[in-house]
């Protein structure tokens, strides 16, 4: 990848709301060029979306939990794990699915649901799949850092305001 593309990706990964003009100045490209590069990255699905990192625990009427479920599966002949993964990620409540090395195969996460909803998902939907051999469900008790951001991390600048 060209270094300017990489540079723009790194900038957007930190703050996807920066305006084109600012990014153009930072990278010393014309605004048109920045737009073109971003469009291309979107078309090529290198940039998959722009989302907002929300601390849902600060939203008062939210009582959801996040569950990470380790899933052991028997891969299906010919299509391996991919087909099983697809049957799992198609459920809208599933936030992420990863193929893992180690003692289990798929890691499935479900965010901001009630315990009852998670229980129902695991027993009625996940375990009901033929190729799922077993599941182990973990609930997240506290998030310290998510997507590179420290939750409740102090943002305060500790430097004195003016120094030589």
């Amino acid at each position, binding site marked *: 990848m060209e270094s300017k593309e990489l*540079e723009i990706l790194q*900038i957007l990964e930190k*703050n996807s709301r*920066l305006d084109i003009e*600012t990014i153009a*100045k*930072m*990278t*010393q490209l014309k605004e048109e060029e920045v737009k073109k590069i971003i469009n291309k990255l979107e078309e090529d699905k290198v940039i998959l979306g722009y989302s907002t990192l929300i601390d849902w625990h600060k939203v008062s009427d939210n009582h959801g939990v996040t569950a990470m479920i380790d899933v052991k599966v028997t891969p299906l002949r010919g299509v391996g794990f991919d087909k099983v993964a697809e049957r799992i990620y198609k459920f809208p409540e599933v936030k992420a699915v990863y193929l893992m090395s180690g003692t289990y195969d798929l890691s499935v996460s479900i965010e901001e649901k009630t315990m009852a909803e998670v229980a129902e998902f695991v027993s009625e939907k996940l375990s009901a799949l033929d190729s799922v051999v077993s599941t182990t469900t973990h609930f997240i008790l506290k998030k310290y850092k998510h997507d590179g951001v420290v939750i409740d991390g102090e943002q305060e*600048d*500790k*430097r*004195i*305001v*003016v*120094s*030589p």
Partner: protein
Amino acid sequence: MTLIDLKTKKDYLSDTVKKMKPSGIRRFFDLASQMDNVISLGVGEPDFVTPWHVIEASFHSLEKGYTAYTANAGLLALREEISGYLENNFNVKYDPEEEVIVTVGASQAIDIALRAIINPGDEVIVVEPCFVSYAPSVELAGGVPVSVHTKSEDHFKLKPEQLERAITSKTKAVIFCNPNNPTGTALTEQELAAVAEIIEKHDLILLSDEIYAELTFDHKPVSLTSLSSMQERTILISGFSKAFAMTGWRLGYVAGPKDIIKGMLKIHQYTIMCAPTMAQYGALEALQNGRENVRHMVQSYRQRRHFIVDSLNEIGLDCYLPGGAFYAFPSIKSTGLTSEEFAEKLLLAEGVAVVPGNVFGESGEGHVRCSYATSIEQLQEAVTRMDRFMKSL
């Protein structure tokens, strides 16, 4: 207990100290710290917190009980690492046993270098605008600072003929910082070579402050020390504050010819003993495993440099592209205000703190120093406020 005679009290301070001017930065600090919601472009240090692996290494040294003094000159392992770092990055070779001292910041290195070489009345050329400590440090060492005023129209690049004009029979040394604080000016190898030629021709000592050397954006960093046969007459001063984001650790170093280093070590051992041990272990880790972090920080400064310089020019503050450090030094002459008036009005009207250029020497008048070592979001807000301020004038 004997009571102090109040009448003589005014004589407690030495003449040298009484004569010293208080730092011009102090007043701005006092003003800015009393206000809320200030965006500060007045900070002369990185906005990055020291990389975690460095902090961890320092913790670990404490856990293992390394809480005693080190050798006067610093841990040999660290001096070896410094020596290797200087050779790899700046093409200069120093014997870690006899030609390197680990100091309490570049600040202490400047102090002991001057005290080691100055006889009363010796002149030391200070290239202004510059870091605020040079001239007072010369005075404290009994020398006489002689200013060379680089010019706004030259983008504050030192011209060899300017330097030569300031040299007298009393001149002993030159202090020169490249890339420079507050101007951000970085000379090319050719321009440095012209400066070196004058220093060699007049047989002077050079105090080369290279603390911002890693933060050179448009070409590979060049050390003035590495040019011609400068090394034999140069005291190379640097440290971990800027490139490694370690200002509060108070750790720097000095490298130079054996006999000068030996002289400096005498002062160092009697006045400091050694630099803080736990900070030395942190610095060791920074040199051994910190390249990637430095590279990231440099990239980030470079992006912000372009943003601030383009934006300042757009709002009507003429600003050249500084080649290094993390300062933009725009001209405010178009406003008709002095640097101090500009900085004070901007602070009071919009809560943006910049440092008036004249505190770095009279040739800084007509400019203000804007440190861009602050987040891009803060820089955006600062520019918006400064734009509003410019329109209100």
